[in-house]
């Protein structure tokens, strides 16, 4: 019953948004279907899509990369308000040993909110950048990402394809920059340079409660300059802005990256409200307070506004690049199989 009412509520929202295309003089918020003669009902397709989406659910694969101790797991837990990242045992040996090589650990959760189901996969990379010699520590990660693309490609070129190919491609990679306050380290530059070509990278400044506001601003400035100097294109990429409106929104975001975030999964009482935060002797840092840190912006970007865009870019650009490269490599063998498959696929809405 509740879902029914929610459905109708959303329907009215949909029709509100469809208002400019629709010349019918329907009042705002009215939900009449057949009262007007000039109403065709094309906008009802949005409703159908929505229902289908709710039934199928969404998939999101996030990868977190950064040195150990930067708060990656805590941030994931804070983002999705539940313990989604790898289990840290609470016994006498709470800290895991640092692995000798970079490992890839992938944990999936099914979460649901207001009837919308999401299969969230968090891919963790313990051991990154922790050794004394960190040469080529990005290779296992790149291999993993390419393997996911490969798996998807194999499913796609099958003769008998599944109706819905399980999407295990990495949609977004969150890279944690340690809050030194000076500049990017060579390791950061190397990693981001290589990976911005195969996956969407969102850099964040970890443990941002170390920096005062002035230090934070100058640090961000330095990082942005270095990214530009090295030709690293992080999400949202300038070249994929579709129209002026997109560009405006994305420009605002681009002025703020990298986001300075603080994560916490403990609640404290502040001014009568219970908020997520960190309590120190000199004050309590509220995670969702924009004056304190930019966690809210990151959450909005990743989940509330740009999630679909991220998946689109992964699917239509990064994956296609991989596909073209792969097919050209083994052109003799596969061309016969593929025949008339078009090189660029129409963007499916999920």
């Amino acid at each position: 019953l509740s879902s029914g009412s929610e459905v109708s509520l959303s329907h009215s929202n949909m029709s509100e948004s469809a208002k400019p295309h629709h010349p019918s003089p329907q009042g705002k918020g009215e939900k009449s279907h057949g009262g007007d003669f000039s109403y065709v009902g094309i906008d009802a397709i949005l409703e159908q899509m929505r229902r289908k989406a709710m039934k199928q659910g969404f998939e999101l694969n996030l990868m977190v990369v950064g040195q150990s101790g930067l708060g990656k797991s805590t941030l994931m837990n804070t983002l999705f308000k539940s313990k989604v990242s790898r289990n840290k045992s609470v016994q006498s040996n709470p800290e895991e040993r640092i692995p000798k090589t970079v490992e890839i650990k992938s944990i999936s959760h099914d979460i649901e909110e207001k009837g919308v189901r999401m299969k969230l996969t968090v891919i963790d990379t313990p051991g990154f950048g922790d050794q004394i010699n960190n040469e080529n520590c990005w290779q296992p990660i790149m291999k993993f990402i390419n393997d996911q693309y490969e798996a998807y490609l194999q499913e796609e070129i099958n003769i008998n394809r599944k109706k819905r190919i399980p999407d295990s491609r990495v949609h977004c990679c969150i890279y944690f920059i340690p809050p030194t306050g000076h500049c990017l380290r060579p390791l950061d530059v190397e990693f981001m340079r290589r990976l911005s070509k195969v996956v969407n990278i969102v850099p964040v400044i970890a443990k941002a409660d170390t920096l005062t506001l002035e230090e934070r601003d100058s640090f961000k400035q330095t990082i942005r300059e270095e990214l530009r100097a090295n030709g690293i294109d992080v999400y949202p990429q300038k070249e994929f802005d579709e129209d002026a409106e997109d560009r405006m929104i994305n420009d605002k975001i681009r002025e703020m990256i990298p986001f300075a975030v603080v994560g916490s999964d403990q609640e404290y009482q502040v001014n009568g409200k219970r908020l997520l935060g960190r309590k120190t002797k000199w004050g309590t840092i509220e995670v969702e307070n924009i004056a304190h840190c930019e966690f809210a912006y990151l959450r909005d970007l990743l989940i509330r506004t740009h999630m679909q865009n991220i998946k689109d870019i992964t699917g239509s650009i990064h994956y296609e690049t991989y596909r073209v490269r792969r097919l050209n490599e083994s052109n003799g063998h596969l061309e016969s199989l593929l025949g008339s498959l078009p090189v660029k696929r129409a963007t499916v809405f999920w």
Partner: protein
Amino acid sequence: MILLVNFSSPFLRSPRAPVITEGMSSSEVLAGEAEGNGGIMGQQKNLEGYVGFANLPNQVYRKSVKRGFEFTLMVVGESGLGKSTLINSLFLTDLYSPDYPGPSHRIKKTVQVEQSQVLIKEGGVHLLLTIVDTPGFGDAVDNSNCWQPVTDYIDNKFEDFLNSESRVNRRLMPDSRVHCCLYFIAPSGHGLKPLDIEFMKRLHEKVNVIPLIAKADTMTPEECLQFKKQIMKEIHEHKIKIYDFPETDNEEEMKMIRKIKDRLPLAVVGSNTIIEVNGKRVRGRQYPWGVAEVENGDHCDFTILRNMLIRTHMQDLKDVTNNVHYENYRSRKLAAVTYNGVDNNKNKSQLTKPDTPDGMSPLAQMEEERREHVAKMKKMEQEMEQVFDMKVKEKIQKLQDSEAELQKRHEQMKKNLQAQYKELEEKRRQFEEEVNTWETHQRILEQQKLELNRTIDKGKKKKIF
């Protein structure tokens, strides 16, 4: 057993005077006295009147103040951990100021060791402070052996001191040995990184290592405690010997030291900006959610570090460096030299210096030199032989070459000669042929003449008849 009592001396009283030794009852005191004063050392004497050697510390003090103090402090850690800020906060000077930015503002390609000196004066006391910084440590992608420049620097300083100690003229002995190394640990909250462990293992025998947790305002108090426990556990696991506070007899000091030991490794926050908090002016860092005060014991352990480093234990750090680390270095170095003539320090050019360090027996040294000399001679001999061989070979080769050449020429000339012979033969033959033809030709002519003559004769004969 005879009691020698000198009544004439005004300074020694009769042994009946009460001896001030803690915990002894009066009967024991008397018994001790009755036994005799053979061992004056163990007994303390109470003096009537003022001798004045209680003034000795003042004399030492005055002399040291005149001479001034030296202290060398090394700071090691990844860039961005607040080393320069902490140094500025500790000594309340701007060692690294905006016009002379510290090394951390430029990323280095390799690890370098930089030294800056500053003379601080306070209350008439001079302190020549040398700060050794290590920019580039742990910043590259591949950090293997990034501790090498640091250990080399420390060893070089020890060597300098060793040489100046062994010199004949020892008037000026500047002490530039590293007295203390502050190692900055990044506040990850998990534990020590492999780089931290490697570095500390290599340096704990050369210098006093004091590990610090940098940027401690990143962590809440619980996280901080957890982190400290984890670090201490790992330090014990890997048997790293960090600087240990000396035991004292004073109960109060012991209590303080125990308190410090509980809070190791010290979590510090550095800042030189002054902020107003509740009407008070404090040094701290201003955040939107509050001010982290540097000198507040609840907030961080900066005051403990400063007191320990400067106010109470600076001299002890220098003593431990001198007595333990330097002596270790010295004995290792000298033992390596006198061990069976096999010199482990050949690459260090110290042995060729004319002044020999103390403690090396001259005989062994002579043996050593003789052996060296013999070896050198042998080598020279070998070399000369080699050169000689080579020359001989060359000569032989040259001779062979010229022989071959001569042979060739000989052949060539023979061929020429033969060719000329042939030519000559040919010509002769031709000539002979010509001669033959001419002769035959002549004969024919002769014959023809004869014929002619005969016919003429015949004609003549006919005419006669």
